[in-house]
């Protein structure tokens, strides 16, 4: 799970995609998904994949972080593709999965998570936004404690392969993490409530479009032209 790495990149990396508004990026993702899910052209999909990698390169995104994330959807889509026993449609399924993941990950890597959570929770009841923020905050608090526990465990047990004793030790780590997190949750929530969460403090949402959004619009038009002629 690269959530911590992604968060760091999304907040601290400087690139032109970061200067685009979250709303424009969300619309770009939806537009790109609509084009790639409605195409049957493998050429278009390959072109779109190259185009997305190109966009990532112009934004100086770390391909070492970016590309491995695409492997998971490709793995799951490959189960469907192989079961189909038709290489042309199989490749179409793989291409769709990989390109969709590339698009979503690229946008997530270049948008401050707080803005994305704001967008996602906008059409939902207020309590959903609170839940998302609280989860995100808790994840980072937990991750630090979890990494310390895992480091201590590695020092004590050394490097080991899969075994029942390892599963047992890891289950105890899960249990300890859960109990610690549960104890922490009440205090953290009270703290956030004191700071105004759920008591009139509004989640800040950025609905403004910016000049850099025109670049995304141009990119989407290029994709649309490619889709039309493919």
């Amino acid at each position, binding site marked *: 799970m690269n959530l911590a790495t992604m968060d760091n990149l999304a907040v601290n990396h400087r690139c032109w995609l970061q200067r685009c508004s979250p709303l424009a990026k969300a619309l770009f993702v939806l537009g790109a998904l609509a084009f790639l899910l409605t195409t049957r052209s493998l050429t278009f999909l390959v072109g779109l994949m190259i185009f997305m990698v190109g966009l990532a390169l112009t934004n100086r995104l770390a391909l070492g972080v970016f590309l491995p994330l695409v492997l998971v959807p490709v793995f799951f*889509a490959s189960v469907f593709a192989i079961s*189909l026993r038709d290489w*042309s449609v199989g490749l179409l*399924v793989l291409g769709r999965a990989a390109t969709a993941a590339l698009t979503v990950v690229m946008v997530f890597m270049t948008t401050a998570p707080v803005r994305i959570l704001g967008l996602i929770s906008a059409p939902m009841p207020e309590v959903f936004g609170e839940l998302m923020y609280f989860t995100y905050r808790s994840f980072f*608090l937990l991750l630090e404690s979890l990494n310390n526990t895992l480091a201590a465990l590695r020092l004590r047990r050394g490097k080991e392969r899969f075994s029942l004793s390892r*599963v047992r030790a890891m289950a105890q780590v899960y249990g300890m993490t859960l109990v610690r997190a549960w104890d922490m*949750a009440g205090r953290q929530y009270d703290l956030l409530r004191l700071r105004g969460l759920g008591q009139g403090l509004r989640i800040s949402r950025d609905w403004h479009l910016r000049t850099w959004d025109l670049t995304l619009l141009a990119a989407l038009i290029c994709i649309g032209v490619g889709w039309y002629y493919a």
Partner: protein
Amino acid sequence: MSHMHMSDGVLPWWLWVGGLVCSLLLTLWALARLRNQRRLLPGVAIMAAVGLAAMNIPLGLPIHVNLAALAGIILGPLNGFLAMLIVNIFTALLGHGGLTVLGINSLLVGSEALVAGLLFYGLGGARRLLPNVAVAVLVALMVSSLLVVAVAGVAGVELGTLSAHEHEDDVDNGKHESNFLKTFIIFFAPLVAVWVAVELTVSMLVAGYINKVRGGWFLRGDGS
């Protein structure tokens, strides 16, 4: 990977739209209940955070557990579903499961929380903790796996039609579907067998550990 994370472009549009609608309705119902029980909100968020953090715990196998069934047992079915929906939103943003299929993925994983939560409380809750956890988690994982096979079956029909259209031939759809499903199950069954064994073992060990260090923790009644 603890369960099948469906990717974009695999399922027919009516299925993923239906999944989004069903997920949305369940979420709104769960949120309406949660609004009146705000003291449970930190618990739901923490369980979602634990679900996300749990993916970082190395088991020595190329799989991770998500503790969805345990979430249903600890938080109750609806709140467990809500926690898993949030986990799915974050994982979808990381490309781990598609964005359009977020609804279906949430229903597949959330079904574990729903079934395990209902069954655990139906069996009498924490009075016979470990046997009840074992039965609830096992049944929940089975239901979730069967749902994955059902969804894959539907996807197979759609992809078969696409394949027939691509080659402009008149393929017997029923035969194609059964071939697709047969191959899919050959790939999916070993993954499921390992996952069920690991998730069940970990869930029981976690429940046992918590019960040992915090006796009576499962008797809080939050999930009821």
